[in-house]
């Protein structure tokens, strides 16, 4: 792997992504809307009855912060679909593959371009959310709920890992997709297990304590490694030039 090549490809993809309004809107609006919207639930829920009870707040806030993990599964799909299927449609992969850059560097560069903005976007959203939620909940809890270990694991481990898994799934989907929209739709299926975890935590079926969160992170590392090898098998010159039609 040559880092300079990876960064050059990622930089090019990022500059192309900058021109895609729908993606830029998603990257900017999603974290702001969710970051500000979720704390509003605290304001309006149970209004007139004293608001959300203090003993429910920790579970609710923990579930809410996990929403950003779910979001991290969505955004890379949108970017990667443009990055891979878009190039496939524009036939711009062949000139890229004709350079001395290795297949793995192309794959990593494109994955990086899908993962980094998504992670940054989710981090911004989480920071906004935690700040507003702390302000809202401090009066009832008498302590600052965020930051805490669970949120730290979400931000630093789960969000990047989920974004990486999402980008890898997109590579696999892109190999068989012929248009960006269908690639995006298929890729977003990766969000289902995380959305299920979110709902389960909301209804109290599971507890998002640091232990289970770390176990989830470990599982995601295994999945990410397996998907990396699968993506690498699909994303090679021979395969792209002779079968990605």
């Amino acid at each position, binding site marked *: 792997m040559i880092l300079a090549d990876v960064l050059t490809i990622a930089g090019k993809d990022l500059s192309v992504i900058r021109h895609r309004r729908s993606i830029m809107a998603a990257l900017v609006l999603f974290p702001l809307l969710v970051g500000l919207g979720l704390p509003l639930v605290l304001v309006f829920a149970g209004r007139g009855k004293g608001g959300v009870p203090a003993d429910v707040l920790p579970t609710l806030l923990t579930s809410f912060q996990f929403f950003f993990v779910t979001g991290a599964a969505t955004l890379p799909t949108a970017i990667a679909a443009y990055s891979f299927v878009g190039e496939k449609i524009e036939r711009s992969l*062949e000139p890229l593959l004709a350079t001395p850059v290795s297949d793995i560097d192309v794959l990593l560069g494109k994955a990086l371009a899908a993962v980094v903005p998504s992670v940054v976007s989710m981090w911004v959203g989480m920071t906004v959310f935690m700040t507003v939620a702390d302000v809202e909940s401090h009066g009832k809890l008498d302590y600052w709920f965020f930051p805490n270990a669970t949120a730290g694991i979400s931000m630093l481990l789960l969000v990047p890992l989920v974004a990486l898994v999402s980008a890898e799934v997109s590579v696999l989907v892109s190999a068989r997709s012929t248009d960006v929209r269908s690639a995006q739709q298929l890729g977003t299926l990766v969000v289902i297990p995380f959305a299920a975890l979110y709902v389960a935590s909301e209804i109290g079926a599971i507890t998002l304590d640091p232990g289970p969160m770390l176990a989830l992170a470990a599982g995601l590392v295994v999945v990410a490694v397996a998907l990396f090898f699968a993506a690498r098998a699909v994303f090679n010159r021979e395969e792209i030039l*002779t079968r990605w039609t």
Partner: protein
Amino acid sequence: MILTDGLTRRFGATVAVDDVSLEIADGEIFGLLGPNGAGKTTTLRMLAGLIGVSSGRAVVAGLDVTDPSQAREVRRLVGVLPEEAGLYGDLSAVRTLDFFGRLYRMSASSRSERTEVLLTRLGLWERRDDPASTLSKGLKQRLALARALVHDPQVVLLDEPTANLDPEAAAVVRDVLLDLKAQGRTVVVNTHRLEEAERVCDRVGILRSRLLRVGTPHDLRIAMTQTHTIVIDLEKVRDSDLDVLRGLGAEAVVVTGNRIELALASGTTTSADLVAALVAAGARVSGVAAAQESLEDAYLTILGDLA
């Protein structure tokens, strides 16, 4: 220099390129002619180190493209123009060449210098900051050619470089090919445009999975044209003149006014023989012309022989 020996590529049961052996010298422009699906693009991709070979060997600029450890270095020395321009629509010409220059490990100064030289040479300098998506088809193709040449490659592989281009754009591309030849670069051009192959290629190879013929356009034309057409103008055409011509082997004799058009089998009677015989028979000859057979005729003959 390019050397292939028994180069073969199969896709499942289909043999796309079959046992192709040829040698292309430095400073030579070699044209690969052939119908769709003849294996031209596959051949270029193998020479560029983009796809593997099933059997045989290919050496490009001294490197064995069939050796995976050398494929990367081959790609560094080769410039490829694919059939589709494949540009990034949002990137300008300058950004496009800068991006590819980085991937070829060119310094910032050489990227900048090379970009200016190429864009000026290809008539794109005025549009250098416009997104590629706003360029006309001809300008896009020129930009794609600049991209293939940005790292000053020793070997240039071009797949249909002038397909669907207007005459002006095609002329610019042809001039660049001749510049490359003058610089001693080896150029392989896949083309359907036979008149173009005739204009710029030192030699051409006719491919239909197998390499059917290789030669200069002139040699192929002569070797493969079984008959040639001669037009004779007389002051007055008499029946006896036609008998004289037929007696010398003329076929398909057509008279239009005082003009006789006929076909002669190659390597038999010459036009001089015909004129001498006509004069001896009392005819007054006012003009003689031999119609030039085209490379296209030779190409169609070669492909037709195998049909």
